[in-house]
Each structure stands twice: as C-alpha cells, then as structure tokens.
C-alpha cells in the first residue's frame, strides 16, 4: 500500500507538469483548432534563457520569473510571426505551420548556439525529501503539485471571472458568433497564446529545475507529453487536459514501478497501448467536447 501511495505521489508530481502543458495545448486548440506542435519550443527557448541567466550568475529567484516571462513572450511572438498569417487556413496548414516553427526554432539553436547539451545548476533543494511514515515525498513534487494547483486555480479564475476569459470561452464555443458580438479576434488569440505561454512557463520552471540542462530539441518530449495528455483528456477540453496530464503521469510511474523486470523497458510502449485502448473505447478522449470551432 505504501508503495502504491508512493507511486501515486510520484505520478502526481510528474503529471502536474504534463497537466500544465496540456492545458496550454488545449487553450490554443480551443480558439484556433490548432494542435500546436510548437508548444515545446517555449521550453526550449526558456531553457536557453535559463542557461544564459545561469552564465550571468542569476539565482533561481531571478531565473523563475525570467523563464515564465520568456515563455509568454515567445508564445506571443510565435503567434505573431507564424500563426497569424495562417489563421483562416485549413487544419492541415496550421499543423504544418506548427511543425515548421518547431523545426525552425530547433535549427536556429543548432546553428547559432550549439548542438551540445548546455547545463546549468539545479536548485540545491531539488532533491530534498520529506518522510511521512513509509512514504517519501520529494520537496519539488510537493512544490510542483502546489504550483500547478495555484496556476490552474488562477486559470479558472481568468476564464470564469474576467472579460478576457469570457471572450476566450465564447470564441472557443463559436468564434464567428463571438466576433459578431464584439469580441476582438486579435486580442483573444494573442491572449490565448499569452495564457498558453504562462502555463508552459510554469511547467518549464519545474522541467528545467529537474533537467538542469537544455538542447535544441529539449522541447520535443514535453511537447509530446502535453499533446498526448490533451488528447487523452479530450482535445479542446480544459478540464480534460488537466485530467489527461495527471492520468499520463500516474500511468507512467505506476507502469514503471509495477511492470515485471523483463518488460520494464517497454514502459513507454505500454503507456501508448493504454492510450490506444482508451481511444478504441472513447475516441473523443476522457471528456467529450461539444464545440471546438476553428478561427
């Protein structure tokens, strides 16, 4: 039982980051019908800014807001530079554009920075643990769970209690109708990318704290996890994205912990088998989304 609780807590810690990433993917999908494969680049760019900050001697107290700000600015910039020009295009064009952004960002870092790993210090407390009976909890897991809860709470507040949130939800429901009612598409889309950037920024802080390094392709894995979690939850559903993130994190840890040694190496494969099974029985994901109009 203690082992199960331990795995559950580890999974919640991992899943929290996935949830933040998935929520960003879901927000963008909600307003643009764009499955944003460039979402991971927010972590890549933030990683290099963290590396630069580390070289300047910045502590994590400075790096944290710097990483979040970088992710927000990068997200808005990507929208302005790439997605703005293909807003009315087909889903396929949007998808290709997001792939294009992913490859361009990666190539820029390869060409102008380095193909090698760039390491920086992790915070000293990153591996501290707290023992509660037989269960050991990493401080960072507690922190990431708490930060995720606060960020999700704030996101709900923004979406439910602000004009921007109302406009965003209205745009996600029916963009044309929202525009007819006076919602400004530019502002909503830019705001959606800023919000997605904020969520990715918080995820990037914890991802980078653990990783302590970055590479030109650093954003690929978090992007895949975020997209997968969003798909599991039901693409376009904000609630589903969060549930999908936690489900993915917990499934990964539980499988790694409980699979027999001989097939333990196939953990990732089993995760995909579970996802495939889910889509056989619930093709729409865990949460059914009634509307997901594109801009």
């Amino acid at each position, binding site marked *: 039982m203690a082992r199960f609780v331990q795995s559950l807590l580890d999974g919640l810690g991992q899943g929290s980051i996935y949830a933040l990433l998935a929520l960003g993917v879901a927000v963008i999908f909600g307003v643009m019908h764009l499955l944003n494969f460039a979402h991971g680049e927010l972590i890549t760019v933030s990683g290099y800014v963290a590396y630069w900050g580390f070289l300047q001697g910045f502590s994590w107290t400075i790096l944290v807001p710097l990483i979040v700000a970088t992710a927000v600015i990068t997200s808005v910039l990507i929208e302005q530079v790439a997605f703005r020009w293909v807003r009315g295009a087909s889903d396929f064009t949007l998808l290709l554009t997001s792939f294009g952004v992913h490859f361009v960002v990666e190539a820029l870092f390869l060409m102008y920075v*380095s*193909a090698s*790993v760039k390491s920086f*210090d*992790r915070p000293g407390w990153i591996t*501290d643990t707290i023992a509660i009976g037989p269960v050991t909890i*990493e401080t960072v897991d507690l922190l990431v769970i708490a930060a995720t809860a606060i960020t999700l709470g704030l996101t709900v507040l923004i979406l439910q209690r602000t004009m921007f949130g109302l406009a965003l939800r209205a745009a996600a429901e029916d963009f044309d109708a929202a525009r007819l009612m006076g919602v400004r598409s530019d502002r909503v889309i830019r705001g959606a990318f800023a919000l997605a950037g904020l969520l990715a920024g918080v995820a990037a802080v914890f991802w980078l704290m653990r*990783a302590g390094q970055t590479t030109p392709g650093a954003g690929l894995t978090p992007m895949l996890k975020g997209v997968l979690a969003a798909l599991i939850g039901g693409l376009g559903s904000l609630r589903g994205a969060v549930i999908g993130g936690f489900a993915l994190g917990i499934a990964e840890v539980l499988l*790694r*912990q409980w699979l027999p040694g001989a097939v333990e190496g196939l953990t990732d494969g089993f995760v995909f088998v579970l996802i495939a099974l889910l889509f056989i029985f619930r093709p729409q994901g865990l949460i059914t989304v009634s509307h997901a109009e594109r801009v």
Partner: protein
Amino acid sequence: MSRRMVLAMLAAFALLVAACGSDSDESDSADTETEAEATDDTAAEDTATDDTAAETEDDAAGDDSAEDTGDEGDAAPAAGAVDIDAVLAADLDNCAEAPSGEPIRVGMAMDFGEVSGFADIPGSEAVTHLADLVNCTGGVNGSPVEVRVSDIQGDPEVTASVTQELLDFGSHFLIGPPFADFGQPVLQVTGGQVPVFFAASTEPSLPNVAANSFLVSFDDTAQATAAAEFALERGFTRAVTFSSPGPYFGYNPQVFTQVFEAGRGQVISDQTYTPVDQVDFSAQVNELTDMLEGNEVVYSAMLAFQVTALRGQFEGQGLDSLTYLGTDAFEATGILAETPESTEGIYHTTHAFAEPGGRIETLLNSYEATTGEALESGTFAGLYADALFLGIQAINDCACTDPAEIGTAVAGISGFNGFTGEMSYAGTNGIPNKPVSIHQLVGGEDTLVVNWEL
C-alpha cells in the same frame, strides 16, 4: 492578401536558396601552385610508425598498388611516417611552399544535428584545421590534403547520397558519423571500396576489416569490460545498473554485468530508464532505497545531467556513499558545466586525457589561436584528428592512392602514436587495440585515474 503574397514569395525564395545551396561545405581546398619542398620533415621522423610502414609494404598493399589504381595520374606519395608534432607546430602565418602533388582527399560525412553534433562538429572543425596545418608544412610528401565536409542531416537517406557525393569527390578515405543508424548507410554505399573511420563511435557492429570499416576508439565491449574490471579491482562487490534496451544504453550495462559477475561481483538490480530524456528517477530510487547498503557502484551509460540528477535523488534519500561509474557518454554532454559538488568523485570511461602540453591541448590551443573560437570537446576532436592521421599514415605506408589498398594498409597499422594514445589495428577486425582511460571528477576537474589495459 498582399502581405501574404510577399511572405509566400519570401518563403519560396528561401526554399530556392536552400535548395540551390550545396549540402557540402568544402572546407579546404588548398592552392597547389608550386612543387612542395618542405616535405622532408614529414617523411623522416615518427619513430613509432616506421615499423608499420615496413610491415605493410610486405603485405599485399605493396608497391604494385599504386600502379594498379592509376586513378590519379601523379605518382603516389612516397612511403614515410607522419610527424604529428611538426604539423601541430606549424605557423599558418609562415607556411612552407604550397604542396603541388595530387591531393589526398578526405571525405567527412558528418551529422551536425543534436544526435551527433557533440562529436561531429568539433571533430570536423579539428580535421579541417589540421589539414590547413598539414598543407602549411608542405603537405604529405608534396601532396596537399583536401577535406570535404558534408552534413548528413541526421537522415539515413541523406547519409547515403552524401556518401556517394564524397566518393564522387574522389575521397581516399572517409570519416563517418558516430552511430550505427548513419554508419551503416555509409558502409552500404562504400561497399568496402573506400576505408571509413568512425572516429567517435564505440558501436561494435560497425567495424569490419573486410568492409574497410574501422573504429578509432575502443568499442563498448572494451569500455564496459574496463569499467567492470576497474570496479572489481577497487574492491566493489555490489553494483546497480541502469539500462535501456538496445545498443549502447543497454549493451554497456549488459557487458558490465557479465564481467562484474564473472569476477564474483553481484549486480543486485538493473533499473530501466529513458535515455537522454529522463531526469526524474523517483520511481527507480524509491524501489532501490531499501535494497542498497550504500557501498554499491552505480553503472550506466547515462548522460552527465542524468547521472547528476540520479545522484541528487539518491542523496535526497540519504544514500550519499554510492559510487558512480559512467561511459564516454558522460563526457559527451558537458560534465564540466555541471556543478563540482554534483559531479565530485564520479568515474567515467573515455578516450583520452588531455594532459597539459599534450597533443590534444596543443590542438585546442592552435585552433583557438587561429579561429578565435574554442573547440567544444578536446577528447572527440582528438579522435577525429587520429582518424585523419591514420588515413595519411596508411597512404604513406602503402605508397598508394587506391582507396581499397589504403584500407588494407590501415588494417596493418600497429603502434600508431596518435592524439588519443597508441593504437594498433594489426590482427583486429577494425577495433584498435588501445587502453580505456578512466577518469574521475575531482573538484570540478576531470582527472586521469588510470589507462586501463584490457
């Protein structure tokens, strides 16, 4: 609409430019205006390789081979040995007369992407710089060295076409990328016609004398064996391995386990993990905490930031007396960028120790003085430098220019004293006999513990 048109036209123009640009960056094409006179030095001195020349000439790759090929017109460079130190001492501002003989062409199929860039970028930079230095000293027996570097773009199909281009260029030997995914396409195209050096590869499936395929480093079997023997010699009897199924990340721990257990050690657990990506080892650490006594050695082929992340999590659980032993991947990913506390005491196997005043350090200094930039990895640059000079040595040994004959000469090399130590191919299947350097991080500095002889 008009802005979209402009953007579309710009994009189309960019694509056109990219398409017209060559994949191949011809990095050096030495001027050959006059007969080189400064070749006496290069031909005379290197004592370590004189024997090789003699042996090879006795073999099938003898004098006839130059006549057989007849592909260059000019006479092949005369037999002799390469004086690497004289090359390193060259002053590019004060060169000997430019060599005018038929060029020695070196093709480099390199991956500048994230997968192999850690080795192929500094390696290709080192080789092109060294070619400049060789030409500055009058070339190899009057022949300039021409290096063509082509980017395989991390794609096996591009690798195959790039290899064909390098063969069409007339390469006398090739230097290939580190991993088998790209190395095999190179070998499929060369079909054994041209010797290929996989400078930074430790992949046991690549070398094959019959296919003229050679490693420049030891292979994974050697480095894992050395690690296990070293651990046993240090008195460790318990070990934990971290592995991932497949070559390298799985193969090294597998060999380590075999050798360690054959030496009366016990591997108490093998934990799987995701190479390159995973930095949260909570699940594995929690599972191991109750099993470990604290006197174990933790062996894996993890990258540096993964080892330090794993170590941090073990220490967070109070397991702060474990000993960590890694492979050459540990060095490939910037160990010195990690904090000294996180790397303190970690052992790893690697290819060479860049001792003060040694050839690798001299190469690094020379490159920086010339270009104003530093090579990212001295060890990997050293391996590529060795590949270049092994090829040149083989050409000298066989006094031939036929690539197949050059390959035969490579297979006969023994006692070659290069940048990463002394190595021999004679009697091997393309994996040089050379010691495995075992290093330890002490106070943030990589220090040599022992050169392990197998």
